[in-house]
């Protein structure tokens, strides 16, 4: 297999020190290949957003990275790149969009100013040329009367419109990787459908790889080539999207898929995953899903299960090991 576009290895992120240390992300490894969509799925607090932020070193200052953590992109380790080099990567190679587009736009500057600045950071072109590129990018993402929109400020635009502007910035930069952190969670369903469609096009036409972070299995089904499921700071399952949906291996993934209602079915009663997500800082020497798992055996409470292969996919569960 060709070398991955992005390779994260043994990424650990913790907060606090000494006895109060909380490990929010625990030895996460993942690869994103050229022009593929990898969906990173999990619930709040599972570490999916921290993982994404770590790629571009956007973590809060109090977060500490584990010594063995590595983020390889284009042959270099982004975690150890000098800040100036990293800025070049941020400006042209990797784009990131967030759940709340309002917080990513400067409220005191026009859309035109922000778009052209972003474009000129990546490539040395005149302001006039950048403006033309900005205009083209806005029409690309389906913004009506883009000339007018360019003169407006973020507060004059709706949420869907702002997210389109963020994607327009991405388009203009032509990055090889887009990190999208819950990009449609705060949008209405009909607008969400438009944005997802746009991201699909971005991938198809520019070959942009997307690391798509979401908690919505319906969105995963629409977007993913491969799926990686996180639970309590760890990767608990990863594999091809089809496999994960048809034959989920980890009991958490199985429970999740069973408990999410579909709009095209009538249910007498929904299946539930009992209990709640463990607080961070649980003992490392047991399975983190054990308390909620229907398959739990004493083994699960006495040791931490390894990520184990099963039909080309991986699950962190003792059921697929020889010890079971």
């Amino acid at each position, binding site marked *: 297999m060709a070398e991955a576009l992005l390779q994260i290895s043994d990424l650990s992120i913790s907060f606090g020190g000494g006895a109060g240390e909380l490990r929010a992300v625990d030895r996460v490894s993942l690869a994103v290949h050229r022009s593929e969509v990898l969906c990173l799925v999990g619930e709040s607090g599972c570490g999916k957003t921290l993982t994404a932020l770590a790629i571009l070193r956007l973590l809060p200052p109090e977060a500490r990275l584990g010594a063995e953590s590595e983020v390889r992109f284009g042959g270099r380790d982004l975690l150890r790149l000098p800040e100036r080099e990293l800025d070049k990567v941020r400006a042209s190679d990797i784009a990131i969009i967030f759940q709340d587009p309002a917080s990513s736009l400067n409220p005191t500057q026009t859309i035109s100013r922000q778009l052209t600045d972003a474009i000129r950071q990546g490539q040395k072109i005149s302001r006039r040329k950048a403006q033309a590129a900005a205009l083209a990018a806005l029409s690309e993402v389906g913004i009506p009367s883009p000339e007018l929109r360019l003169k407006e400020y973020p507060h004059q635009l*709706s949420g869907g419109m702002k997210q389109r502007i963020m994607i327009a910035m991405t388009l203009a930069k032509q990055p090889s990787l887009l990190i999208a952190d819950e990009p449609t969670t705060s949008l209405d369903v009909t607008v969400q459908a438009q944005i997802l469609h746009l991201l699909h096009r971005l991938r198809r036409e520019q070959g942009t790889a997307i690391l798509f972070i979401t908690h919505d299995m319906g969105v995963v089904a629409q977007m993913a080539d491969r799926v990686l499921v996180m639970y309590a700071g760890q990767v608990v399952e990863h594999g091809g999207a089809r496999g994960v949906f048809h034959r989920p291996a980890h009991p958490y993934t199985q429970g999740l898929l069973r408990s999410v209602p579909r709009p095209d079915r009538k249910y007498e009663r929904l299946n539930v995953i009992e209990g709640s997500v463990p607080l961070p800082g649980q003992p490392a020497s047991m399975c983190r899903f054990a308390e909620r798992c229907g398959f739990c055996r004493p083994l699960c409470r006495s040791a931490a299960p390894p990520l184990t292969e099963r039909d080309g996919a991986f699950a962190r569960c003792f059921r697929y090991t020889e010890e079971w």
Partner: protein
Amino acid sequence: MKADEPILEVKKLKIYFGRGGFGGRRPALRAVDDVSLRVGHTETVGLVGESGCGKTTLGRGILCLIPPTAGSIIFGGEEISGFSQRRLRSVRPKMQMVFQDPATALNPRMRIIESVRAPLKANGWGRTRAEQAAAEILETVGLGAEHYYRYPHEMSGGQRQRAVVARAVVLNPQLVVCDEPVSALDVSIRAQILNLMKDLQKARGLSYLFISHDLSVVRYMCDRVLVMYLGRIVEAAAAEELFAQPLHPYTRALLAAAPIPDIDLPAPTPPLSGEAPSPIHLPPGCRFAARCPEVRPECRLREPEEKILPKGRMVRCVQADGSICAGPARLGGIK
């Protein structure tokens, strides 16, 4: 009150904001415009629509938390829309609300049991009796004694929402308005809370007005569904009828856009372009005309009337006559 009377009946309710301006010339924001609805005993009525369509304002208006501009609200056979705050206090115990975000719905400085017994104390219950009733309801919603004296920040989102639900039902209300009760919760917790709400409804004979943007949740919870667009109810039907045969083009678009967790379904083409216009400057014709894929010239001239159809259905669209419609291709036929 007769048994077949609905617990709640809303007639031609209007809630406008920002009326007037200088010299009364600024147009009002018509958040809720001529809405009529009924909620029967132990019935769950869903209210679906996108952000800004007025569904939350309608929910709050029904509980008299926002004064109506016009129209009437009949609760338990009594017209309450003109009630003074004092008189409302005698009705309030019978109508409660569950909010979206349990983190902000609970007082952070109150222990859980204090929050749950607060409505009892406000209604004159003695301390011991209130404490006992609060403990009982907490037990019912699945929060054991170890949770009674915790503060909200010491609990998970799901546990907090259980406490919010407990507080809403502790006075034995007849109607609970639930405003996106699971949207802020983790996916693995949502099913727990939905099942809990169904169990409570059965055990206590509750009626729910269930506000949500999530169609799969609405289908699971609701007997009847109202679809709202820009302050108007554009379609009303029994839940199964609505999902099997949506009549309004907006309902069809909502269904077609809803993501389905099924990898074998093709990704949908976006059913609508653009976004809902501002509820201040409404177009003269149908409010959905600007986005409607099936728009006709007459739609832009006059606003369509409510059409009453068999089986208690209503639709506000010139084209729908109840016989010509097929469900959306993606959702049709999959059962």
